[in-house]
């Protein structure tokens, strides 16, 4: 990516800044970062550990999607292909080679990035709804491969008994609570990578392309190439999340590559707030907890509730949960700064 960075560095021009950059290096940002870390570390004490792990994985997945949706303006409706593709690859590596799980997850992530190259290359030519449809079509192809290649993937029955091999440390291999802390660094690394990507000069070019791609092209940026790279990076992070999800659950099912999974992560990102990055994590936490609660509540209409929440958020809080909060905080600090001035 280094050549791209120089590329972007040489061209200085005003970019519409993304939200949240308003309170740039304020102490508030560090406070929020510390709070976020504290939540991530304390989560399995408050939430049932396997659910906490689900939240982490979905959070990274939603953040990965937000790189495309929020910073490139590309709505991918096929990210299940990378989450699920990596889940299968991770599962297969773990089952057949018995390597420690971080290695299996890395293999899954590489696999996701590999399949993302041709998919991204062919998809980024389209924009808007067409981009969404093309990515959906590719994801469905992955779904059917996973379904039909039964000898390898287990088809409808799923890939069962994926081990959590971790250097023979039994606590991590058997207890979800300890596994959480073994997996947490990988997730945090993924989130940090996402943050680096969108706040790098490369990320600023993405925003420029999102807001005015003819202008970016006129300035000499290879728009398609930037989009493909963003697509592959996003797929890699989605793959990291999906691989850990597979290890955490101990099996991989077709659900992972189903279009509903793509839909769910879009829902989380929109709920949390598009273009806010951390909003995805908030949305993921909210949806996973809600679904878990509903599943044991005896109430039947799970879809109705998540659907209603989605409608309400889209109609009333268009910035999403995190976006709305961030907006309130930043507008207040701007006001108080104005008074002081």
């Amino acid at each position, binding site marked *: 990516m280094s050549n791209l960075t120089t590329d972007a560095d040489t061209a200085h021009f005003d970019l519409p800044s993304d939200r949240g950059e308003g309170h740039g290096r304020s102490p508030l940002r560090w406070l929020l970062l510390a709070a976020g870390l504290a939540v991530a570390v304390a989560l399995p004490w408050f939430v049932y550990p396997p659910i906490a792990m689900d939240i982490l994985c979905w959070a990274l997945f939603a953040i990965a999607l937000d790189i495309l949706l929020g910073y490139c303006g590309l709505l991918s409706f096929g990210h299940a292909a990378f989450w699920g593709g990596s889940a299968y690859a991770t599962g297969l590596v773990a089952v057949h080679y018995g390597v420690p799980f971080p290695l299996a997850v890395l293999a899954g992530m590489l696999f996701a990035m590999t399949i993302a190259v041709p998919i991204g290359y062919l998809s980024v030519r389209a924009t808007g709804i067409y981009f969404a449809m093309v990515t959906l079509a590719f994801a469905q192809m992955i779904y059917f491969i996973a379904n039909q290649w039964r000898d390898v993937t287990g088809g409808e029955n799923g890939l069962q008994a994926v081990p959590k091999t971790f250097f023979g440390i039994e606590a991590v291999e058997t207890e979800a609570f300890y596994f959480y802390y073994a997996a947490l660094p990988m997730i945090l690394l993924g989130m940090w990578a996402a943050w680096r990507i969108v706040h790098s000069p490369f990320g600023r070019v993405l925003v420029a392309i999102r807001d005015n791609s003819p202008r970016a092209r006129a300035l000499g940026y290879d728009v398609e190439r930037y989009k493909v790279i963003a697509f592959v990076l996003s797929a890699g992070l989605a793959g990291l999340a999906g691989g850990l999800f597979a290890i955490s659950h101990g099996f991989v099912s077709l659900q992972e590559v189903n279009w509903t999974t793509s839909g769910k992560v879009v829902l989380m990102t929109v709920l949390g707030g598009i273009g806010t990055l951390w909003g995805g994590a908030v949305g993921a936490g909210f949806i996973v907890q809600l679904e878990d609660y509903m599943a044991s509540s*005896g109430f039947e209409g799970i879809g109705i509730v998540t659907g209603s929440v989605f409608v309400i958020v889209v109609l009333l809080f268009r910035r999403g949960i995190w976006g709305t909060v961030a907006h309130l905080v930043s507008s207040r600090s701007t006001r108080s700064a104005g008074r002081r001035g």
Partner: protein
Amino acid sequence: MKRNTAAKVAVASAGAMLLAACGQGGPGADSGAISDDSIVLAVLNDQSGVYKDLSGPNSVKAVEMAIADFKEEHGDDAVTDNIEVVSADHQNEPDVANTKAQELYDRENADVILDVPTSSAALAVANQAKTKKKLFLNVGAATTELTGAQCNKYTFHWAYDTYMLANGTGTAVTEGGGKNWQIIYPDYAFGQDMEKSFTAAVEGAGGSVDGSIATPFPNDNFATFLTKAAAKDPDVIGTMQAGGDLINLVKQFNEGGYADRGISLAVGLMFITDIHSLGVEQFAGTQFTEAWYWNMDDEARAWADRFLEETGTRPSFAHAANYSAALQYLEAVQRAETDESDAVVEELEGLQAEDVFLRNGEVRAEDHRVIHDAYLAKVKSPDEVEEDWDYEEIVATIPAADAFRPVEESGCEM
């Protein structure tokens, strides 16, 4: 799962300070023969989707009935008075089933999980049962994998499977004169298994399968597949569709007038709730394999009457099988005088039992397949129906020993 809220809050507040402590280990050491002084039966199934009617909340009722009967039978001699049921919705998603199963075993202290329709979900739960060393009595899923390559010590398969369905219907219909078959099956694991098993059964009985047509799943329009199948002039069209797909196919079969051309329809998997939702006239004359029918004899009927009082509806075989599984589990605990999993497994293995659901029942020790008499049923014509839910006529009984896959073929290694 509201029971543990207080505990959770306590753990949460203490947790931050006690991070160095031992974390959340497994359930505490058992104080007596019965862990936590209570037996917890967990029903994990589809409470909101396509399988809601055939298992769903009424399976929970059936398990409650089993507990009531157990208490009544043993009274003060019962191993414990404290028996409760918890339930959760797996939404037919294996991921959800997997997490819920862990949660039920860990947080709700469930000693056994019951029901779990949808094969992929059932296999995920079986894996959890193996890891957690807790019992899993599957009722709702059809896959033979549970007692085959993926069998384990703590998993039992109670009511039916694809082999039983295919073998029963395929053999009986072929011997009844339906020699030439066309099979229409949905192209996923269940359909593919059924197609293979049916072909084997039909050919074993001296018939022939002239063609098998794979259809997308799920699918609404079966007209082209039916036309293609009927073009070969078969005696029988066998459909392996289930649920909503089956209902669509049967409607289109009837509208196409294939029955008038002398083609009969055999159905791979059908629940009484399917007949109820589509109406008996649509299915009239269709033959299929039943694990149990509520009106098959006085004992079944008496139980179905109680069930009707409790729920306002007649039971499917899955409901009766959940009752049976819960009851036999409790009886096994009673005999073992503990709910410790290994002891209960030992009691269940090789058990020969009779109850409302199990006729000539036996829990095979080798693969944990529960075998029992199965039935070839025929859907009544509308003028034969005498009361609500009186839809089926039992044509033949398939003895337990013949109804299920022989142990030698299971491939199960525990």
